[in-house]
């Protein structure tokens, strides 16, 4: 069992928890993820590490309440325990040789982008962060980003905060103005990552995307997290996001396929979510 040491609501649908897991805290690097189960017989869900505190042995996770499992997790309070917490899994984000980086985060993906931005800042790289949300109510981690970024642009789809529009707008402006980056790292909804990749392509700036597909074990055993890379010569290669990723070259990802696979259980999740809500309603 793993203790929830601290819990904080970042916005009405996004919660941050710090979980006591010293072995994971000692090892986890930005870009890696963990797998947790809320209770006995619960689903295994992957969540990217949003930070670690090796001193008190805690690992920070940030999650959006989207289905039955995250709903149950959100009902756990500070001081309570979750059943399982395993990691760190996947490869850490590659930082070597990157002196000037642009981090593009969207929605709850900003929770994953934040430790990556912090790591680059710590390593002395020049960090530009562009973070986007649907509206002001859903804004998270602005302060954390401003602390570790040389430049921060906040975007909202409805213009209720920061600049009006999506994250590709300022990115294109910067690239048009002749700015270059050693790497653009984008983390968020697949559709956003796809458009960030398309926006960067004419300028030839390398793009790293962080994939978050459906997975079970996280160690390469189930193959459910497979994604297809399309190489320059058109050949297709299957990779497992859990062991080969989660970071990949954005130009090679078959985004449309990944989006389709991500919707495999949409109907099931909606039913499960409704069932869970009713359950809590009755309790």
């Amino acid at each position, binding site marked *: 069992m793993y203790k929830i040491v601290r819990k904080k609501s970042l916005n009405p649908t996004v919660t941050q928890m710090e979980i006591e897991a010293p*072995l994971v805290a000692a090892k986890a690097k930005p870009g890696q993820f963990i797998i947790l189960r809320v209770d006995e017989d619960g689903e295994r869900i992957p969540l990217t590490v949003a930070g670690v505190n090796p001193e008190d042995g805690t690992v920070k996770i940030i999650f959006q309440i989207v289905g039955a499992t995250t709903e149950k997790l959100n009902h756990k309070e500070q001081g309570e325990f979750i059943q399982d917490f395993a990691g760190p899994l996947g490869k850490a984000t590659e930082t070597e040789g990157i002196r000037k980086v642009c981090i593009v985060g969207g929605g709850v993906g900003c929770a994953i982008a934040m430790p990556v931005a912090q790591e680059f800042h710590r390593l002395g790289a020049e960090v530009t962060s562009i973070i986007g949300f649907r509206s002001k109510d859903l804004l998270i981690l602005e302060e954390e980003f401003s602390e570790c970024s040389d430049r921060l642009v906040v975007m909202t789809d409805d213009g209720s905060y920061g600049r009006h529009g999506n994250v590709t707008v300022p990115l294109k402006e910067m690239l048009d103005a002749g700015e270059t980056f050693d790497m653009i790292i984008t983390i968020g909804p697949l559709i956003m990552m796809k458009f960030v990749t398309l926006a960067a392509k004419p300028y030839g700036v390398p793009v790293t995307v962080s994939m978050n597909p459906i997975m079970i*074990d996280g160690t*390469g055993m189930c193959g459910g997290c497979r994604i297809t890379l399309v190489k320059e010569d058109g050949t297709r290669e299957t990779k497992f996001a859990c062991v080969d990723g989660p970071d990949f070259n954005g130009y090679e990802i078959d985004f449309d396929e990944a989006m389709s696979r991500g919707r495999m259980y949409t109907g099931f999740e909606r039913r499960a979510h409704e069932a869970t809500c009713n359950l809590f309603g009755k309790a």
Partner: protein
Amino acid sequence: MPIIPKKHEMPTQAPEVRARNFDEVALGYTAEIAVEEAQRCLNCKNRPCVSGCPVNVNIPDFIAQIAKGDFEGAYQTIQQTSSLPAVCGRVCPQETQCESKCTLGVKFEPVGIGRLERFVADWHNANITEVPQKPESNGHRVAIVGSGPSGLTCAGDLAKKGYEVTVYEALHTAGGVLVYGIPEFRLPKTIVAKEVDSLKALGVTFETNVIIGKTLTIDELFEMGYEAVFVGSGAGLPNFMNIPGESFKGVYSANEFLTRSNLMKAYRDDSDTPIMKGGYVAVVGGGNVAMDAARTALRLGAEQVYIVYRRSLEELPARREEVEHAEEEGIEFELLCAPTEILGFNNPEDPRDPRNGFVTGMRCVRMELGEPDAGGRRRPVEIPGSEFELHVDTVVMAIGTSPNPLIKSTTEGLEVNRKGGIIVNEDGLTSREGVYAGGDAVTGAATVISAMGAGKTAAAAIDKAIMGK
């Protein structure tokens, strides 16, 4: 007494009933049947059955004890060499091991050794509540990576000798393939849990949610004071065919399909784990895993399940008993048949159509057997012009696995072969001092009992190495 030519039949659930539930198929011998079956043993002098068993269970002795009605004595006899009798009695391919060597089997059916082993283990579990005593510690510590059959066997053998053993498991439940792979109807999970509990009673510690190669490395295990490490991490990565359409929704690896159902309990109505169920299902492959996946799909509510295998019935690598069970339950065998493409739904008018990207069928080609290949098996060859489409909603790829690279990639000096299997000598020792390995991590996908044999060999070698220091 005249010789009874045939084995006593195993009582089973009727096929039409069991095809729709997850309860165990075989119900086990009663005490009366067990005694009668045990009396078929000729008690021959040369005891060939013992050499047919990878862990050399003292078979004639335990059978003689059953014949006398001394069931607990029989259990103790098995227990001396096997840590998992209730598991082996269920999943071992006895027909190619102990029973294939049985003297009675020369003229008649061999003694039902597996069924008797299972009876003895179940009798013990149902009637004996005493737990084994924890042996006195010898002060030496050994770490085991993976809690599947090889790891559990190695742990059990070392614990009995007084070693302080810790088993590290990446998943949340101990048992490895016995819990994520083999379905409930063939091996109830309460039985695996009992075997794990008896190891705990011997003093073995289980640490779940620890991924060796990630959470901790092999080198760190030595720094923590373990004197030897046994790697039984299994054959992790599922193989796919690399044909078009394998990324459509509804295509699973057998590992994923079985893990969702077994470990994650998707077969239960109250489970949070989603799985595609119902409709038409094709399972590609002909091994035991393919049979398990097909029979699981049927029990999840499929209208029709096909086994698609490129060779003929004779070459099916699955146990005969599993194939027969599957046939009885109504699984359809598409033999001499190979998939060439998986087809998916695409509505060109509406990219948001929720049906887009789901499997609608599988294009296959008929095969015939040609010349034998290097291994002596006749190679399947496509029959030109024989392409056809199988209408299916779900495809499960059960065509084998490759060893997991997580440990190799974080352990310097650990040598692996071309296929990624860890290289070991006859004692199970790897290229790294103090690091032993066995089971599927070494051989690629094989059987529970051969993994147990490897765990046993390594345990003996570890004991010898540590005691000889």
